């Protein structure tokens, strides 16, 4: 099936936020802090304002009528509430923190002005190390909070201490999951106009994944009711979670549109995207496993410290990383004694937000790297050890109370093992070593909550109600219009959602139009992130389309003088079962539905052919496994991925092409996390990864041809058995790659303790291993 959205995107006729223009529109550029932590002494805009074409420079004082942007995080008592002004008023807290905005006739002039704004700074000691930030004598990132720790939480189930006391083997690792981000090829962008009508209203184009939630969060900061803010999210050039955050710029640009009396556009540049968007996955993890002599794993204990950056991000807070690393600790393993603790220290770095794979990635790394370590310690095969401890395929409740809806946990691992010819590989590995070549294999089976809704969020310790609605209308001519609050930034919702609507109503797919991305024309929805849209979109459309279908069937039955239970609606025609010549086209049914007067059933006279319904499913969990085969050049430290196999079980697949595309893209992201992507800060908090020469994306030469397999275990709880996909490969791939590298280098006995595993880092480990070996030989 070819995608509906492709022709416009291929022809260069997409409309992205930077393609939007208003008459008289001005352009904005932000003045940002070059310091990690500094007091703003003064801002002198006179030189900037002297430039022809620079119209205004606004600081926090000019927008002091805005309410603060408040991060309350998930609805939990143990999470600090943090407030910030959209422009830093007295203190800048990370490199890139916005302190002023220049508005000018062109983007070039706005940047000229930006460079001429003279800010006098008083540098303060930066908080850079997340563990030191937790010490009582640490300087505070935000004095108002009185602490650096946004949240400390602990949870345990079973008797973890007893299990460790009784263990025959205890494995303990420390792992630092590196700081990476989404870095979509299209950065952020906002175009806003203020209309002095209806008491004043904002019309905003934004590159966002969640138009309705963005409106809900920014309207109170702008001081207007939500109904006076329209958010339009046009084509979005990739998002990966970055764009389900509410940013200061989302508020400042509408505010200065109001102040300047002109529409204002701000298009982020790449440095801003890397320095001042959201960062992700920077977590110091410790992971301990208790096991019996026969290989039974009896307890997991984890500690997860998220280097949270300077602000608790809105709406998800840094718990989107730490909490989910902890609460899903038992994953696909039958381990009943489980404990974790999380900390979320603020530091003078960019805030942590929700980026593809979120804290599942560090959690998966810590657990799966530790399991491989345990296997080596015990002399057991890592695949066998995992299979021995795996839960069964049936519905299963974890020690922390998540209820999995059935999955192919062992089968996925077995299929991944077979996909890399595991037994044969071990022979090949031995032969290669004789030639001085170092090959390795690694596995990473996973479970992830997908159709993020109220139940799954609560089970994950993020107890915010999440649901979605869809509205389905059969128009007077029988064509179909669907509106949804979900958004599409590459996932192809115009295709998949049209396809499921067409199936539900028995109409041709090209008669269905999907409307989204505009708070004025779409029903309320929570947006697209957390691999949730297939489940929520399908469920809400099936419910609303089902109601419309019922009405169409009853009209057709009355027109055909048949019983509704005998009506089939297929290919836009209603027929009486077994009587091929008794039929009526949908167009005629629809027309009757609108204009059939009192001959129509009462509910159709009242509701017409529109139905709106919500959906809030039970917990859905996808599972799968990644397997990586790598070769490490021990002279250079370069890792080459020879094969990457992934088995994905996302329940019933709605569109196999799109699912495969999601899995492949997520794996590429996982390869980046494992080997390349690192947002680095100097010890003084200076940010040094502000361009794509230092922040490396995987390209065609780093991502191999992937081996992709699929298993379909229908969800026991969701509409149609759908589970959802999007993040899987990003969660699974890094641990598989790290385990493969460790396996390749097992003759050297090295221990990988961080990502990304760069050539430089590997050479350092290999040099140290050589050094140790020489010492042994010398002794």
């Amino acid at each position, binding site marked *: 099936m070819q995608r509906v959205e492709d022709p416009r*995107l*291929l022809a260069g006729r997409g409309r992205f936020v930077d393609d939007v223009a208003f008459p008289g529109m001005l352009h904005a550029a932000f003045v940002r802090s070059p310091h990690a932590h500094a007091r703003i002494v003064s801002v002198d805009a006179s030189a900037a304002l002297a430039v022809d074409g620079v119209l205004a420079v606004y600081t926090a004082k000019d927008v002091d009528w805005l309410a603060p942007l408040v991060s309350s995080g998930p609805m939990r008592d143990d999470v600090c509430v943090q407030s910030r002004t959209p422009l830093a008023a007295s203190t800048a807290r990370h490199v890139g923190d916005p302190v002023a905005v220049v508005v000018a006739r062109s983007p070039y002039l706005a940047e000229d002005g930006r460079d001429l704004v003279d800010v006098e700074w008083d540098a303060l000691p930066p908080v850079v190390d997340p563990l030191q930030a937790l010490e009582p004598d640490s300087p505070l990132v935000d004095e108002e909070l009185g602490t650096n720790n946004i949240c400390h939480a602990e949870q345990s189930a079973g008797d973890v201490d007893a299990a460790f006391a009784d263990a025959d083997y205890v494995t303990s690792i420390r792992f630092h999951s590196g700081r990476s981000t989404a870095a979509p090829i299209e950065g952020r962008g906002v175009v806003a106009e203020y209309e002095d009508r209806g008491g004043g209203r904002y019309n905003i184009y934004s590159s966002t994944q969640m138009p309705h939630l963005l409106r809900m969060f920014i309207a109170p900061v702008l001081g207007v009711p939500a109904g006076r803010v329209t958010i339009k999210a046009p084509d979005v050039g990739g998002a990966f979670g970055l764009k389900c955050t509410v940013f200061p710029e989302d508020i400042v640009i509408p505010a200065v549109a109001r102040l300047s009396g002109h529409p204002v556009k701000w298009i982020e540049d790449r440095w801003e995207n890397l320095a001042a968007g959201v960062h992700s996955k920077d977590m110091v993890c410790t992971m301990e496993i208790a096991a019996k002599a026969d290989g039974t794993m009896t307890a997991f204990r984890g500690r997860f410290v998220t280097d949270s950056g300077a602000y608790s991000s809105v709406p998800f807070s840094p718990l989107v990383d730490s909490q989910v690393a902890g609460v899903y600790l038992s994953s696909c393993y039958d381990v009943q004694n489980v404990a974790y603790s999380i900390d979320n220290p603020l530091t003078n770095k960019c805030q942590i937000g929700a980026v593809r794979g979120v804290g599942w990635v560090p959690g998966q790394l810590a657990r799966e790297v530790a399991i491989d370590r345990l296997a080596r310690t015990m002399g057991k095969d890592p695949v066998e050890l995992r299979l021995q401890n795996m839960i069964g395929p049936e519905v299963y409740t974890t020690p922390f109370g998540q209820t999995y809806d059935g999955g192919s946990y062992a089968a996925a691992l077995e299929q991944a093992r077979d996909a890399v010819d595991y037994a044969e590989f071990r022979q090949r590995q031995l032969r290669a070593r004789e030639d001085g070549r170092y090959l390795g294999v690694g596995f990473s089976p996973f479970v992830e909550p997908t159709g993020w809704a109220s139940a799954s969020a609560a089970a994950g310790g993020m107890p915010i109600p999440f649901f979605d609605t869809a509205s389905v209308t059969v128009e007077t001519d029988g064509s179909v219009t669907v509106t949804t609050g979900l958004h599409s930034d590459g996932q192809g919702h115009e295709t998949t959602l049209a396809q499921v609507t067409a199936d539900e109503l028995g109409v041709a797919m090209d008669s269905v139009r999907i409307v989204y991305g505009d708070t004025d024309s779409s029903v309320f929805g929570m947006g697209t992130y957390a691999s949730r849209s297939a489940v929520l979109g399908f469920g809400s459309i099936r419910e609303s389309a089902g109601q419309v279908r019922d009405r169409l069937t009853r009209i057709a039955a009355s027109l055909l003088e048949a019983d509704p239970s005998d009506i089939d609606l297929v290919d836009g025609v209603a027929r009486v079962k077994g009587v091929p010549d008794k039929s009526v086209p949908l167009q005629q049914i629809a027309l009757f539905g609108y204009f059939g007067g009192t001959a129509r059933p009462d509910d159709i006279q009242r509701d017409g052919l529109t139905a709106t319904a919500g959906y809030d499913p039970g917990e859905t969990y996808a599972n799968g496994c990644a397997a990586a085969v790598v070769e490490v050049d021990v002279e250079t430290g370069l890792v080459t991925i020879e094969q990457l196999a992934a088995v994905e079980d996302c329940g019933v697949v709605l569109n196999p092409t799109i699912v495969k595309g999601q899995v492949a893209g997520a794996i590429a992201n996982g390869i980046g996390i494992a080997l390349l992507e690192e947002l680095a800060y100097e010890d003084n908090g200076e940010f040094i990864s502000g361009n794509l020469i230092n922040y490396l994306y995987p390209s*065609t030469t780093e991502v191999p041809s992937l081996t992709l397999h699929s298993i379909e275990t229908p969800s026991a709880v969701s509409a149609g058995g759908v589970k959802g996909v999007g993040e899987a490969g990003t969660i699974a791939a890094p641990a598989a790659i790290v385990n493969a590298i460790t396996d390749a280098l097992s003759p050297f006995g090295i221990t990988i303790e961080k990502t990304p595993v760069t050539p430089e880092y590997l050479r350092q480990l290999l040099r140290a291993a050589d050094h140790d070996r020489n010492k042994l030989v010398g002794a």
Partner: protein
Amino acid sequence: MDSRLGSVAVEIIVNGEKRAAVAEPRMLLSDFLRHGLGLTGTHVGCEQGVCGACTVLIDGQPARSCLTFAVQVEGAQVETVEGMAKAGELSDIQQAYRSAHGLQCGFCTPGFLASTQALLQENPDPTDEQIREYLSGNVCRCTGYQGIVAAVRSAADARKASSHGS
């Protein structure tokens, strides 16, 4: 567009049509195309010459329009994504990207299409390794490149088949 450093008229031949607009000497070709001429199909991803989203063909050669000043291409032939589809029909390369799911969000796609067009002109029958090598200057964050490599392969194969057939 408003200017601080004075402006010059720039005339280029875009997709076969002579176009002219006023530009500051420092104006990037990407901005000139997008905002001067309204050809918003060319996208800007990094302005650092790394991501390749802004790739266009200048006198047949792929080039980063974000690293090129508009004034540098005075009189040159520039091909952008808007010139690829003829009379509303996607080109064979565009259609191959569609069939092989070689795009998701579509933001990097115009740059990939330009590079693919140049590759197949230089080397009508590339190996998968040559495809990967040639396209390594374009990054895509969505697809993991599987559909992209398949699209280029199938476009090359289809051209080969049709030239053998004729």
